[in-house]
């Protein structure tokens, strides 16, 4: 057995599950980012990406803007982040204090079989700071993530934590079918989001229940 020097995704996910803030919404990127989170902490407040690589971060940004009183945590991969690096700049420009960005930095495209990234050694925390997310940090150990998650200090903006992670190439089997439309509807129900009332029923607008 080969000893690894970096923690696994599961190590970080256990910390996240154990320290999830009340009322948090969690958006997870494609592949094991979603499958493993579903296995460890399946909940209506989760929004799992099926594909759409690189779009978990901007979707989470929109969700954070729409739900400013709830913590929104997004788990994005380093490869996915590089695919839409501009989203980091948009997050930095808006800087919502309720958004926490966790970047799994494993140096590969894990969801597609472990192909090498264009540049696996980037200082992503520095990149995030340069993008306007002042509270950005490279994290080497799950304990450091736990300390961050337990820190109840009010923040003035978004936080970006880059998690040094061992690649996980074996696909995790999620405990439930991750039907995209069901996932969307149950999250909206969980947060009491306004719903569109069909025009035939005298609606035509979003209405709160």
């Amino acid at each position, binding site marked *: 057995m080969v000893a690894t020097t970096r923690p696994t995704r599961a190590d970080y996910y256990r910390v996240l599950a154990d320290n999830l803030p009340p009322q948090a919404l969690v958006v997870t990127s494609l592949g094991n980012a979603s499958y493993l989170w579903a296995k460890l902490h399946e909940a209506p407040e989760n929004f799992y990406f099926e594909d*759409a690589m690189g779009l978990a971060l901007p979707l989470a940004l929109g969700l954070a803007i729409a739900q400013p009183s709830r913590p929104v945590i997004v788990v994005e991969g380093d490869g996915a982040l590089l695919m839409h690096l501009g989203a980091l700049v948009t997050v930095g420009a808006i800087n919502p204090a309720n958004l926490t960005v966790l970047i799994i930095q494993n140096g590969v495209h894990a969801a597609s079989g472990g192909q090498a990234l264009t540049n696996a050694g980037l200082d992503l925390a520095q990149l995030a700071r340069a993008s306007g997310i002042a509270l950005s940090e490279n994290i080497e150990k799950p304990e450091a993530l736990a300390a961050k998650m337990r820190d109840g200090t009010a923040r003035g903006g978004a936080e970006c934590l880059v998690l040094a992670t061992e690649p996980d190439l074996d696909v995790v089997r999620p405990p439930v079918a991750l039907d995209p439309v069901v996932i969307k509807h149950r999250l909206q129900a969980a947060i009491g989001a306004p719903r569109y009332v069909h025009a035939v029923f005298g609606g035509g607008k979003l209405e709160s229940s």
Partner: protein
Amino acid sequence: MNSVLATQADAHRPSDVLNTLKRLGFGAVVSVPDGWLGKILVRIEHQHTMRLVRATHEEEALAIACGLRLGGVRTALLVQNAGVLSMGAGMVSLAQRYQFPLLMLVSYRGTPDDPVFYHVPKGRVTEPVFRGIGLSYACVDRHRPIGPQVEHAATFAEEASCPFALLLSREDIQW
């Protein structure tokens, strides 16, 4: 020309677009601007009831809009047709797959009314690409008021739970 058409011709169509979004309860607009969209975005930015989010890329804008709608905010995308061409993967794998109702107000560049040499290649393929990716859309009828056409597009998006693109000409959207 009868009096009805004269009135329609005199109406400031970009104002009608903005007023319709407000009346329908749109709380957010996500955009990557082009030359026609720039000024209406400034107007939107000053609205108290709407939030403007300026994205760096149209596929990113699409995902932000999906997140806003997921969180219960009625959201419109304002982008150029070139932007829709570059958001194809997100359109099919996110917006359509998860059935997000989104109103897309799209400046239709490169048509015979806008024969700028570098826009023409995009105009030529816009509608075939929309059909190819299964994106529901309509072209604005310039002889009819714009407000109801925006409302119909927004209603279709919600009733059908999908993105709907309304292709706009210069006089519809350039303030």
